[in-house]
């Protein structure tokens, strides 16, 4: 049996697991994927080719275990999200994204001091 991780997006190190077994064939376990490339994360490799082609190594599994949790959500544009994020005081957004964004913003607009109250 062989297991291979692939990038799922969504979280740092998020994984699509491909399991190959001689008797059953190929099983792909892919939950909580993000196909969009974020500032701090690449998108999933599953849909990586031009024109939405499926990544060759993960194509045509014998069993696919996946979810559709975010399928019904229409994502907002990155520009709008960034603007909303910078304007927020209290945030529960992923801290890595926030830190990255704050540093970028600070680089272009060095008018304020960045102060983190907890270690990243």
């Amino acid at each position, binding site marked *: *049996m*062989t*297991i*291979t*991780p*692939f*990038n*799922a997006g*969504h*979280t*740092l*190190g*998020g*994984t*699509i*697991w491909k*399991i*190959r*077994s*001689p*008797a*059953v064939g190929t*099983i792909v*376990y892919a*939950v*909580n994927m993000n196909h969009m490339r974020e500032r701090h994360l690449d998108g999933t*490799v599953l849909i990586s080719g031009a024109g939405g082609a499926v990544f060759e*190594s993960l194509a*045509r599994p014998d*069993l696919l*275990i996946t*979810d559709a*949790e975010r399928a019904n959500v229409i994502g907002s544009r990155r520009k709008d999200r960034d603007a909303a994020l910078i304007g927020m005081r209290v945030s529960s957004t992923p801290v890595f994204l926030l830190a990255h964004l704050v540093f970028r913003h600070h680089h272009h607009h060095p008018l304020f001091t960045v102060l983190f109250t907890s270690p990243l």
Partner: protein
Amino acid sequence: MLTFTPLSGAAKSERTSPLAYLLQVDDINILLDCGSPDWCPESHSSTTESDDDATENHFHWERYCDKLRECVANNCYNGQVRTACVLLTIDVLRIAPSVDLVLLSHGDLAHSGLYPYAHSRWGLNAPAYSTLPVQAMARIAATEEAEGIRDEEDVGGTKEQVSPESEGDISMEDQDPSNSPQENQPEESPQPELRSRKGKYVATPQEVHDSFDSVNTLRYSQPAHLSGRTRSPIHYTPQSQLIRAVLQGGVKV
């Protein structure tokens, strides 16, 4: 032979988290994710159904945790057979005496939060795999959760603190799921009662570190060849892959 058994998650209930699926492939039991429930659900004090929600949350996680516990700790399970649990988990017991492999897909609590407790208290000693960032993120998240909950309330020390009496209580509640919500009288300040109720499976920070230290890490696209419990290592030859590719191509044409 392939069997897929959702222990929790969207395939099992309306909840999408925590995730825990059991996959049996070639007599090898793979645990896909090992998420922890939301131990301290936000109390919606403004809404009227908050008590029911809280009770329902508790009931949900106890059933899930019992199932997971049965799965991973079947070998060292020493208690009396609890009829309620057997009824709830009879499918799992039949097919899943123990877990042979754990795969963690994301480093948040919903995907890997219960792994430290299961590893250190329930004997989930099967090899676990994740990527390096997932290992690091899950360690941070679980440590934060463990410290936060342990600061707020007493969830048990370094030892397994479930006494035979309290185990009996849990099984009593499990025996009749429909009565369980009524037992926790929602009218008279349910919050302290629920919070003090045993059954939050929160590891100590040290256990969290030890558990995630034992996780094997892989890089993306780095295959790991595993041998079955009773089998010699399995190797894929280029020929078999070629044959497979030809077959798949043929099907496509």
